């Protein structure tokens, strides 16, 4: 699934320390010094569910179908293993002197979390709640495939404490869904949204634009279909073809032709216009919500460099300037947890420069803006139509629609690269 909360490594990304060879000794997670200032940082938990019924051609997330996994690391045992890592996480943070903070957001991503029985997801959530407690207004999200839910499962999830569901709708147009290898019936989505609302869950829909063969009219149809379901939140991501995916091979062989950047710009502008018209406000480049309450606080925590622990194979974590990522494959992951070892594949301690770079990189994407104290820079960003004038008066870079499309350039300019 393509959502921002899929806090899962990329299979081809050069993760330092991520061994190809399971035999390589697992590095000891070093959380020294991360406790400083922890009381002022929120704690979130991401739970990765690395299973899908079918692998989509464009997907490069860390997920496996039953056939790909073969024996071992079974879906049945997975909740138990994840709970094992929750306990290891608690012990590691305790040992590093990190205060036990109530968890403000939990996000189950994948993969397809709803491939697991609702009871399994509930067990993991309860264990998290028992371990750290949940903040009173905690946001608890799960991703879901529209055809992997029923009114029954949604009711169970709501009863277990889930507050929010994010459907991978992607498109309303059959030929686009077919190119993406999405198997769900588009007609199923409004139904699944209605059931979720009935269950009292907030609803988010994920859309993808820029699929090979998608016209501007196709995209408009998808947007209008999504808006018609009146979700509380919408994400719209440009399709990025990652190396190593089936789609990358299709593009390389010329079977699929990627749209150019201008086409994607047109589609982004259309999305921004239609969503604004329908009462959605952007709060991050690719994310819109009906009200500030409906913004995804879990993702905002990522973008604002809060603390979160990523549970599950390939999950990424960040605590106080320390980043690490778990081993990718469910089997060595399960084996490590079984032996009461944190399943860490690699880690890095960010330098001050790196933290600054990341902060600019991430916060500039947010509608709340990125503070910048260089007046000449602010003036030039406004003059070039990249930043909004009023926030600039207050020393904040808030991107215009053009600026959102050219956010990389804005980042470079704030970091003084041009």
């Amino acid at each position: 699934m393509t959502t921002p909360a899929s806090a899962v490594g990329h299979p081809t990304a050069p993760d330092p320390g991520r061994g190809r060879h399971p035999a390589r000794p697992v590095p000891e997670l070093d959380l020294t010094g991360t406790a400083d200032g922890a009381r002022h940082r929120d704690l979130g938990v991401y739970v990765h569910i690395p299973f899908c019924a079918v692998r989509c051609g464009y997907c490069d997330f860390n997920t496996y179908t039953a056939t790909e996994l073969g024996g071992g690391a079974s879906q049945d045992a997975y909740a138990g293993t994840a709970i094992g890592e929750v306990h290891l996480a608690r012990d590691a943070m305790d040992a590093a002197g990190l205060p036990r903070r109530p968890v403000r957001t939990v996000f189950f991503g994948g993969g397809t979390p709803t491939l697991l029985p609702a009871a399994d997801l509930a067990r993991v959530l309860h264990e998290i709640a028992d371990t750290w407690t949940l903040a009173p207004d905690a946001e608890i999200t799960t991703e879901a495939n529209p055809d992997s839910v029923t009114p029954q499962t949604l009711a169970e999830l709501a009863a277990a404490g889930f507050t929010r569901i994010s459907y991978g709708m992607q498109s309303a147009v059959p030929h686009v869904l077919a190119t993406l290898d999405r198997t769900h019936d588009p007609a199923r989505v409004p139904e699944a949204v209605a059931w979720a609302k009935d269950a009292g869950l907030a609803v988010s829909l994920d859309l993808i634009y820029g699929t090979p063969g998608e016209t501007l009219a196709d995209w408009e149809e998808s947007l209008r279909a999504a808006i018609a379901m009146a979700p509380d939140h919408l994400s719209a991501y440009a399709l990025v073809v990652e190396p190593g995916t089936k789609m990358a091979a299709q593009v390389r062989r010329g079977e699929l032709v990627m749209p150019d950047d201008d086409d994607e710009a047109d589609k982004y502008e259309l999305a921004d216009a239609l969503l604004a018209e329908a009462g959605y406000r952007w709060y991050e480049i690719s994310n819109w919500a009906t009200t500030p309450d409906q913004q995804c606080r879990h993702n905002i925590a990522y973008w604002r460099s809060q603390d979160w622990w990523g549970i599950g194979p390939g999950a990424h974590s960040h605590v106080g300037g320390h980043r690490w990522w778990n081993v990718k494959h469910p089997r060595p992951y399960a084996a490590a947890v079984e032996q009461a070892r944190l399943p860490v594949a690699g880690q890095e301690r960010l330098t001050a420069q790196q933290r600054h770079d990341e902060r600019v990189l991430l916060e500039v994407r947010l509608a709340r803006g990125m503070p910048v104290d260089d007046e000449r820079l602010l003036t030039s960003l406004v003059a070039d139509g990249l930043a909004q004038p009023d926030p600039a008066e207050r020393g904040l870079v808030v991107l215009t629609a053009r600026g959102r499309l050219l956010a990389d350039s804005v980042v470079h300019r704030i970091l003084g690269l041009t």
Partner: protein
Amino acid sequence: MRGAPAGRVRAQSWDDRARTRPRVKDRYVPRIATPAALERIRPAATAPELLRNFCIIAHIDHGKSTLADRMLQMTGVVEERLMRAQYLDRMDIERERGITIKSQAVRMPWQVEDQAYALNMIDTPGHVDFSYEVSRSLAACEGAILLVDAAQGIEAQTLANLYMAMEHDLAIIPVLNKIDLPAAQPERFAEELAGLIGVEPEECLQVSGKTGVGVEELLDQIVAQIPAPQGQVDAPARAMIFDSVYDTYRGVVTYVRVVDGHLKQGEKVTMMSTADTHELQEIGVIAPDPTTAEGLGAGEVGYLITGAKDVRQSRVGDTVTTQHNPATEALAGYRDPQPMVFSGLYPIDGSDYPALRDALDKLKLNDAALDYEPETSVALGFGFRCGFLGLLHLEIVRERLEREFDLDLISTTPNVVYQVTMEDGTEVEVTNPSEFPAGKVASVTEPTVAATILTPSDFVGPVMELCQNRRGVMEGMDYLSPERVELRYTLPLGEIIFDFFDQLKSRTRGYASLDYEAAGEQDADLVKVDILLQGEQVDAFSAIVHRDKAYSYGVMMTGKLKELIPRQQFEVPIQAAIGSRIIARETVRAIRKDVLAKCYGGDISRKRKLLERQKEGKKRMKNIGRVEVPQEAFVAALATDGGGDS
């Protein structure tokens, strides 16, 4: 061991192998001169009639070095255990590319009946860029072996050198090499050679440098056919420099042919072109390692070491005489090396500029023809405008800079020297297109070459078409045989330094060969085409072209840059202009989107690493006005598909 099947070799012991080795040697048993005979051919004490000075004229790949290797072994000057392939080629580039860049001279004893002779084999550079050095090497000889691959026949450059040798009245011994090859056609090519030099086909020797067949006969024929040197033994010394090499330990090593008189160790000698005086710290012969001698007498060939640190102090073609008894007249034929082709060399990493300067200073010590001066380019930063003898010379220098000095370089499109006369009568010499004067130009002259092209007769049409496209004027055409044609053209040098040779090769399936020599200058309707990015001139892409080709150059270069220049936040016009007149235009549309909308939630590291890579990329950006252009775009736009004549 005799006749042991190949399959059993593996089972042999080391001792067995040692005993089998002489069998291999049987094929070329050295004919080592007797001590008594050798005594009569000591350096400085050899009568001219016992000397034979010869060179080998051959095309690259026709086996000159391999033949030389066999001669070294047959004459016994290199022991077999010390033998290595291409023994005489010293530089790595020479050995790897199979090109002999710098010539040398090896002295080999060879006994015929009771008499020993000293054979001096003067190795000639094998490329058109070094034709002046070839001419000096030829001038040092009385005879030449015309060595031709029996499977390929003669090539244009060999032909040109053959003509040069004939002009020097050298005795020519025609030799077909590689007769061991299955594809060899010695009868066919013997006809061709015989026709060229006016002998009977049967007089062509057939050898194999690889197996040694016929090499002994060839050495005998050198003694029999090549005249002994004619010099005045008692006249004031005159020695011609035919090569000059810088050695890190010894300074300049100068190779000379003594024409008259003699030179002795410890004497003071004078270079007649500069009147500079040096002491002969060492004098000797190459046999084939440097071997000191008391001196060198008339007709002999050897080396001098004077302590000079720069080959410019010991120039090819110059005459060496002694200070105490100087000759009054220098030997004919000295010429300053003239750069014909210019190109800007720039370090890709600007901080390598001082390293590039140091490297050029070092190369210059060993390359009298290399010329350079600092130059600044808006697009490429600090670099040097360098003058070369030709394209191969350029390539070799560039390759040595990159390989021996570990530099990454960009070279601008090579150009020739133009003489521009303005309407007000002022004259400007242009070695860099961006210096082409603005204002009213009365005339422009360009250098021309007389080119010889040998091609299979099937391809005459395409070759003529190519030459016409390059403003060539046909001077003549001869059939060397029913299958091979010699075409002679006068061509502007500027038209053949770009990709002419590649075009020639592709139109003739690789069979044609090319040689050319400077043939004066001509007036031409030439204009400077500038390339502008958003109105700013990009100096590295300015070109001087014929007016009829200005448009196609403009379209080609703007089109190329359009593909290479990344989209900016504003529209970037790319224009080609003659003066203020725009002749071609492309537009790089403004970028509308650069953001990677899919921001991985948790995997921030990956995004930051992408940013860090972008930061690295920014360091290689050049600004042309407001337009940011990655260095790679310039490199790609300047890249040609080779252009070397090798």
